[in-house]
């Protein structure tokens, strides 16, 4: 639970920064942020923000999905399998995001 709360608080701060950097509040149009050079430059310039966002979002999100699955489907004796799947999914998402950050930024 502590992990959920900590990642939630990190997410509120970092996601707000991410959205504000690429929002109309900064005068940036949505179409402009989707251009290849702009998107790549953003990823390079704000790699620390995106790195933090990646880890907090994946850990919070996948763990949240595991909790929802526990509440909705009551796997009981197979709860360990759900935890294993969650860890594998977390690993996959983190690997994909980290690869993107390391190769682009």
């Amino acid at each position, binding site marked *: *639970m502590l992990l959920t*709360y900590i990642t*939630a*608080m990190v*997410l*509120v701060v970092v*996601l707000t920064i991410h959205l504000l950097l690429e929002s*109309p*509040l900064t*005068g940036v*149009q*949505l179409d402009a942020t*989707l251009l*290849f050079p702009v*998107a*790549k430059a953003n*990823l390079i310039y704000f790699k620390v923000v995106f790195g933090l966002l*990646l880890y907090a*979002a*994946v850990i919070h*999100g*996948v763990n*949240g*999905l595991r909790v*929802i699955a526990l*509440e*909705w*489907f*009551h796997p*009981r004796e197979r709860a360990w399998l759900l935890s294993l799947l969650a860890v594998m999914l977390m690993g996959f*998402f983190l690997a*994909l*995001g980290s*690869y*993107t950050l390391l*190769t*682009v930024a």
Partner: protein
Amino acid sequence: MAKTTRFKSGLLSSLIPFGFNVERWGYVVHRVTGVILIGYLAAHLFETFQLSLGPGAWANTMAALHSLGPLEMVGLWLVAGSALYHGANGIRLVLNEMFGMLMGKPIMPVYPYSPTSLGRNQKIAVWTITAVVLVLWLWAGLYLLAGLGVV
């Protein structure tokens, strides 16, 4: 048979808040928006991954997204609403569960039991969150759907 009963009990009772108080509605919406957001996170990770494959792959991904037509912006609007509600309600939950704020003191559960966790402060928080999120979601809708641009 027993497994089917357990499944229905968990899933249906979690998703149908009718007849329950406002906290239960918040519980359901928090979970539904959470599922929407994890789906978007997966798609967003794959989308951003295309940046590492070069301009061609990125252009193809953008073309595929734009081929969805208005559904692209409607989807983004749904994600924006989900993020706004999940974030705002999440702050309330952290204040409740981690710091014990906004909640009343426990009392003896005498019939008819009225939960102190749903006191005045909690109700103010719930309705304030709902109002703020609806206003911001409307603004996001104007920006995304009507193409109003910089506000």
